[in-house]
């Protein structure tokens, strides 16, 4: 499969279209099974963050690219928002009780937990976040 991409306004109302695009792209490569919810979840978290945080002073776009093979599926998320390195986001405290536990801060953590390889780079005015999912040996993808 050649690289497919979808570029939309970074708004929550476009989330469904983004997830449908990613699920369809993964499906065409044979990723139909267990991993799909993980992939959708990681992409949702990253996309929602771009919609909510990347453009504090207005509006902007988000671009998703998807591609790969039966063994590795990659989603690249690209925006022109403020620089944000997901790998540098602090770990949430997973042991605090209900009163102490802070609301939020789980999105980046979930992305890092569910994705086999995460990389971030700033290129010019762009944030480029790569999420790669690997099929485990013998596992249905």
């Amino acid at each position, binding site marked *: 499969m050649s690289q497919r991409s979808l570029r939309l306004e970074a708004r929550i109302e476009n*989330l469904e279209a983004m997830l449908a695009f990613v699920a369809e792209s993964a499906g065409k490569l044979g990723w139909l099974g267990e991993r799909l*919810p993980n992939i959708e979840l990681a992409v*949702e978290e990253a996309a*929602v963050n771009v919609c909510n945080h990347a453009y504090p002073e207005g509006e902007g776009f988000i671009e998703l690219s998807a591609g790969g093979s039966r063994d590795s599926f990659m989603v690249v998320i690209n925006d022109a928002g403020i620089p944000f390195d997901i790998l540098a986001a602090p770990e949430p405290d997973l042991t605090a009780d209900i*009163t102490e536990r802070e609301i939020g801060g*789980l*999105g980046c953590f*979930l992305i890092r937990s569910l994705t086999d390889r995460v990389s971030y780079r700033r290129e010019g005015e762009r944030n480029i976040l790569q999420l790669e999912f690997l099929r485990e040996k013998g596992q249905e993808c």
Partner: protein
Amino acid sequence: MEILATRNDKGTIVAISGKMDAVTAPVYEQKLRELIDGGETVFVNDFSRLAYISSAGLRSILATAKILKPKQGTLMFCGLTGPVRDVFEISGFGSLFPLHPSPEAALKSIG
């Protein structure tokens, strides 16, 4: 996402089906806030038909729990399936909240 709340003498069973994501989680939060404002304090979230939850769902759940805490209320869960259970585990929500096999077991647990 669909939400069906059923009141009963021990508490309210909230059966949620579909996806609890950034678009739908606020609907859940709003619904529970209304029930709490109406005086309910004991809730069992029946997740047996919930296929998907994202951090937006976790956010709404924690926000609801924080409202219930000073009212001596409880938010319990039952019927978590594969992907939802994984998210609860990874995020520590599985140990933050009581998980039960069924709504009945949840309500029984509070005596």
